[in-house]
């Protein structure tokens, strides 16, 4: 269904401006009788979640410094990552991760060094006003720079999404997450302990801090000290990028993320380091920054009459909502100056794919206003790409620049960001409906730019390392198809993963997720130096009969080699806006993509002890599919071979392969 990428541009007269009926836009109703209470849009300003309190900053209190050191000791202890005696999450497969901070890093990650320390609690929060006049209870991440027994500070926003982690390349971020979700919470599933784990999506994180789905922080009993776990992010991604963090608990991710467990993680160039960061700074300083750099996460939700969140129990296709939230508030407005802005878009919905456009009209994109896409999940694009309407699927990020100046000069004071992709089924979107869009944000353009002049510009080359040289390859190493090992007939070797649906279950190469069962035969080599390193090509094949799957792979960012039709094999090369690095790939029905990367740990942040598992997952990011075990394990190894699957406390079962049905 590649025609969906086409943009219709007609010279139609502007449609009459109907102010949309608030949240129940014409698009994307869940299609049945469940409807949220209706409210008018554009009543609240767009929220920008603040960063958490850095515990080891220069003017931190004694309490905060002590906390930072507590966190360090917890993470650096020799047996810090051993699962507790009863891993509450799923089973008793104990991951063989001895430490949260590997021995070689323990000295470097002390709070006195160039490291950021934070403490974030997961907690139930009642009283959030998302629908005007109604009170919603959520589960959120909250900044908590104090002792665990203390209450949340009064100035911490009681809203979701959670604090935005502002990180820079090369400066590790160490966060102690505290699970204060209780079995007795309103939103807790009765009788169950609300365990949780946190995944830094797109982050280049060692395995024990990546949020493997069965490696959870147990829920709180309500008495004494809640369980905690320290997550270590070295921040050695190749490029600055827009990332995010969210819950990743096995079988409960869809619900937990829906209830509010998500937040931004923005990775910028290091402010003073030389080398590549100097180049990144030089480019990013030209782009709009500071107040003019706005992250936006789109989430659709369904509410009950009393304002509580409605998460359907028996929906396995994908959860859709009819109320459109941006940064946790329903269809907000944003006052903007007449100048360029950088927006970082994140589709944080469970199952909704969006078609985003700027428009003068809240419900039509017939004359969409063009914008410039400058980045994807993993990096800035080699060159800017002009777009009019952009499709974005779950967990994908788009970095864009939009200039309000020209419109203000014409006397236009309001511009809308609209979603024009209709979706009524969790399995996938329908079609672009340019006359039936749902407004997401209203931009109110003021008269003057503070400071008088807009100094920002978009460089014509955004990412020189990703621009193709005369041989067609990138300067940045590790993404060259030439370096991929060849098979006997001379073709580049590939790993093939087929996504299918069998008996109502989603499978990857015929199997469902089995905790710590390696699904990459032979393991995947983790390179410690670029010299001699070999990239891998993964072929992701969607043959699930029309279902749409955005496939996300943990740990690394990938280059797209080509798309293809799963049946005919017809190839399509990536377009200009797909020419960068991505970690999430939207596979439409019968679509295949070939992607390439080198799995690496160049700065030696991973544990190298023999027998230590280095397991990551890759999965569909329709979170309801992910919960139904549409996920697989990718086992990395450094030396000769990967370790075998770990023993369970109970006898191992047969493999989880689904047999072919006989016809």
């Amino acid at each position, binding site marked *: 269904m590649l025609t969906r990428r086409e943009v219709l541009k007609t010279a139609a007269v502007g449609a009459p401006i109907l102010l949309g009926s608030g949240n129940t836009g014409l698009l994307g109703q869940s299609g049945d009788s469940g409807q949220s209470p209706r409210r008018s849009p554009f009543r609240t300003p767009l929220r920008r979640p603040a960063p958490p309190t850095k515990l080891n900053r220069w003017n931190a209190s004694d309490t905060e410094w002590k906390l930072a050191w507590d966190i360090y000791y917890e993470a650096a202890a020799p047996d810090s990552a051993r699962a507790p005696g009863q891993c509450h999450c799923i089973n008793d497969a104990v991951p063989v991760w001895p430490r949260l901070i590997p021995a070689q890093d323990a000295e470097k990650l002390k709070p006195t060094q160039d490291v950021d320390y934070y403490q974030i609690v997961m907690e139930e929060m009642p009283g959030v006003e998302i629908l005007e006049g109604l009170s919603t209870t959520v589960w959120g991440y909250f900044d908590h720079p104090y002792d665990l027994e203390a209450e949340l500070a009064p100035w911490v926003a009681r809203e979701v999404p959670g604090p935005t982690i502002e990180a820079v390349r090369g400066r590790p971020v160490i966060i102690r997450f505290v699970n204060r979700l209780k079995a007795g919470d309103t939103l807790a599933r009765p009788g169950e302990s609300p365990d949780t784990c946190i995944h830094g999506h797109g982050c280049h994180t060692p395995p024990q801090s990546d949020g493997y789905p069965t490696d959870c922080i147990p829920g709180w009993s309500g008495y004494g000290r809640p369980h905690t776990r320290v997550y270590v992010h070295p921040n050695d991604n190749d490029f600055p990028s827009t990332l995010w963090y969210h819950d990743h608990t096995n079988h409960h991710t869809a619900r937990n993320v829906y209830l509010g467990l998500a937040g931004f993680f923005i990775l910028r160039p290091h402010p003073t380091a030389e080398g590549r960061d100097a180049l990144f700074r030089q480019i990013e300083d030209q782009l709009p920054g500071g107040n003019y750099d706005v992250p936006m996460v789109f989430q659709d939700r369904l509410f009950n009459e009393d304002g509580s969140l*409605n998460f359907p129990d028996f929906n*396995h296709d994908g959860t859709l909502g009819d109320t459109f939230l941006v940064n946790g508030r329903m269809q907000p407005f944003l006052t903007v100056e007449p100048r360029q802005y950088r927006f970082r878009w994140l589709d944080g919905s469970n199952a909704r794919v969006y078609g985003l456009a700027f428009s003068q009209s809240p419900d039509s994109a017939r004359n969409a206003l063009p914008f410039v896409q400058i980045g994807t999940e993993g990096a800035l694009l080699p060159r800017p790409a002009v777009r009019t309407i952009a499709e974005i699927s779950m967990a994908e990020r788009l970095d864009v620049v939009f200039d309000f100046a020209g419109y203000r000069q014409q006397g236009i004071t309001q511009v809308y960001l609209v979603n024009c992709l209709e979706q009524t089924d969790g399995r996938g979107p329908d079609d672009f409906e340019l006359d039936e869009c749902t407004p997401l944000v209203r931009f109110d353009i003021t008269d003057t730019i503070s400071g008088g002049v807009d100094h920002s510009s978009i460089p014509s080359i955004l990412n020189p390392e990703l621009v193709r040289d005369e041989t067609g390859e990138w300067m940045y190493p590790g993404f060259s198809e030439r370096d991929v090992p060849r098979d006997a007939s001379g073709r580049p070797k590939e790993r093939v993963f087929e996504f299918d649906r069998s008996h109502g279950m989603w499978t990857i190469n015929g199997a469902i997720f089995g905790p710590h069962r390696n699904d990459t035969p032979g393991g995947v080599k983790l390179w410690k130096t670029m010299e001699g390193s070999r990239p891998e090509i993964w072929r992701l094949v969607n043959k699930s009969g029309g279902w749409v799957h955005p496939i996300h792979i943990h740990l690394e960012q990938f280059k797209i080699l080509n798309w293809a039709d799963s049946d005919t094999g017809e190839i399509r090369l990536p377009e200009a806006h797909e020419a960068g690095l991505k970690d999430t790939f939207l596979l439409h029905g019968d679509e295949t993509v070939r992607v390439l990367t080198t799995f690496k740990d160049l700065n030696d942040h991973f544990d190298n002890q023999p027998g230590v598992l280095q397991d990551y997952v890759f999965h569909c990011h329709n979170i309801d599919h992910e919960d139904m075990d549409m996920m697989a394990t990718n086992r990395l190894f450094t030396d000769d071979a990967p370790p075998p699957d770990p023993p369970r406390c109970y006898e191992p079962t047969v493999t989880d392969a689904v047999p072919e049905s006989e016809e």
Partner: protein
Amino acid sequence: MASSRRALFGLLAAPVVGAWPTMAERRQARITTRRPGRSREAGFFPNVTLHTHDGKRVRFYDDLIKGKVVAINFMFTSCASFCPRATANLLKVQARLGTHLGRDVSMLSLTVDPARDTPEVLGKYAAAHRVKPGWQFLTGASADIDRIRQRLGVFDDDPDKTQHTGILTYGNEATGTWAAMPVIAEPAVIARALTRLLSVDPAAALRPQ
């Protein structure tokens, strides 16, 4: 625990699924499936009449679901491809549940081929697989079983029976906690998920009794 929700919108009448449904009926069926779960509402689970493999006549909601911790899957006895695997896996779950099965937790397997799977046929199937009390195989009117599948979100509008759902729906009706996972997930995982719903320490529950 959760406050009861009033039925604000009339419950949609389940479409008749006798002859193969029309497009309108299929869309209606999907609508019913995607209805936000209001499992605590009266009438959410159809109280249809079913027959167990030992010949008893039961009402689905009143006798099998109400107040109970259950695991529900779908099968048919002449299924050669997938069901043997699913049943074998569930037998391991039966083993792990030990004395919980029948006392606190019940397993229900409903046939999607009621024409052939009479109570006698199901009885033989259960005996052959050494199914213990607490795990019941059930049959009934085709339309009723389809309605149950729709309510549980596992109805597939594929007339090919061999492609019926492999999803195991499980929950605690008393607390309104429902979830699902593939029926071929690891038996320890399924058994733990069920015993967690009993509000007891799950690891202790699964140790030998």
